[in-house]
């Protein structure tokens, strides 16, 4: 698997994401936000967590208009695999690649802890390594993770089986307990919790490792 990790000023989970990919056997390229094109031959792109451009204007808004994001949107439109974690999820909603908006947490506080999630669908390259309904623990660390979608969009996400993860105990106010969503073609995942921070016993848990190994299995040349 050849994976790319986009790096913005203010990204702070880029190295964690690279290590998670490498643990799954990937060759990783770090990609600077000012680049206008992606390295050739990538199997998956990761947009990491952090506070790109200081969260100015809206979380992810400036990053979503950066030169590399135009290339990422084109890549996703061509059917490429993309995962956006935390700030990466916010960036994907700002580009319109994923629907909905991440708003300020309902309790207004920054939440930094490990949370329980259920795997809501196993029908994606990212979640096929889990059992349907399986409970997993991933850390969250965000101030703006309150997923907001209008009733039509929520109905569509549910009927198309595009909710990837749900919070067991909804701490940020997200509609329908949604922690992660898939694109229509199921090849783009955005989620607020951090699977890349749960891939080593020293992290306190390894529940995230199955996401990266499942992805690597899909990308394995037949």
């Amino acid at each position, binding site marked *: 698997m050849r994976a790319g990790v986009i790096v913005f000023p203010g990204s702070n989970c880029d190295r964690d994401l690279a290590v998670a990919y490498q643990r799954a056997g990937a060759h990783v390229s770090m990609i600077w936000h000012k680049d206008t094109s992606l390295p050739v031959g990538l199997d998956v792109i990761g947009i990491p967590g952090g506070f790109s451009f200081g969260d100015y*204007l*809206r979380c992810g*808004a400036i990053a979503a*208009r950066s030169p590399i994001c135009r290339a990422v949107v084109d890549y996703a439109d061509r059917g490429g695999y993309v995962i956006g974690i935390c700030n990466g999820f916010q960036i994907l909603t*700002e580009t319109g690649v994923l629907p*909905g*908006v991440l*708003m*300020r*947490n*309902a*309790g*207004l506080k920054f939440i930094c802890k490990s949370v329980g999630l259920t795997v809501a669908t196993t029908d994606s390259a990212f979640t096929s390594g889990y059992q349907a309904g399986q409970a997993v623990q991933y850390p969250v660390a965000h101030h703006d993770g*309150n997923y*907001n979608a209008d009733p039509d969009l929520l109905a569509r996400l549910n009927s198309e089986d595009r909710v990837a993860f749900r919070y067991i105990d909804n701490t940020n*106010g997200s509609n329908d307990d949604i922690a992660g969503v898939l694109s229509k073609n199921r090849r783009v995942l955005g989620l607020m919790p951090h699977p890349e921070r749960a891939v080593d016993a020293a992290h306190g848990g390894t529940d995230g490792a199955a996401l990266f190994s499942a992805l690597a299995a899909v990308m394995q040349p037949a």
Partner: protein
Amino acid sequence: MKASVHIMLKQGVLDPQGEAVRHALGSLGFEGVSRVRQGKVIELELAETDKAKAEAQVREMCDKLLANTVIESYRVEFT
């Protein structure tokens, strides 16, 4: 030409920050505030001198960057 862009959450979108401000006003003794909505104002100085063209430009800026029109509405004023 100067433009001010007023950005607000659309009606029906929960504004937790506005709610927190409302509670704080109540605890300071300001009674009778039934609702608080918080938004932002962005001031732009433009080289364009034609108001219609400037307005079209600013609206495009709002749609492309300044507002997230999924949840926010905007109003443009020229001074």
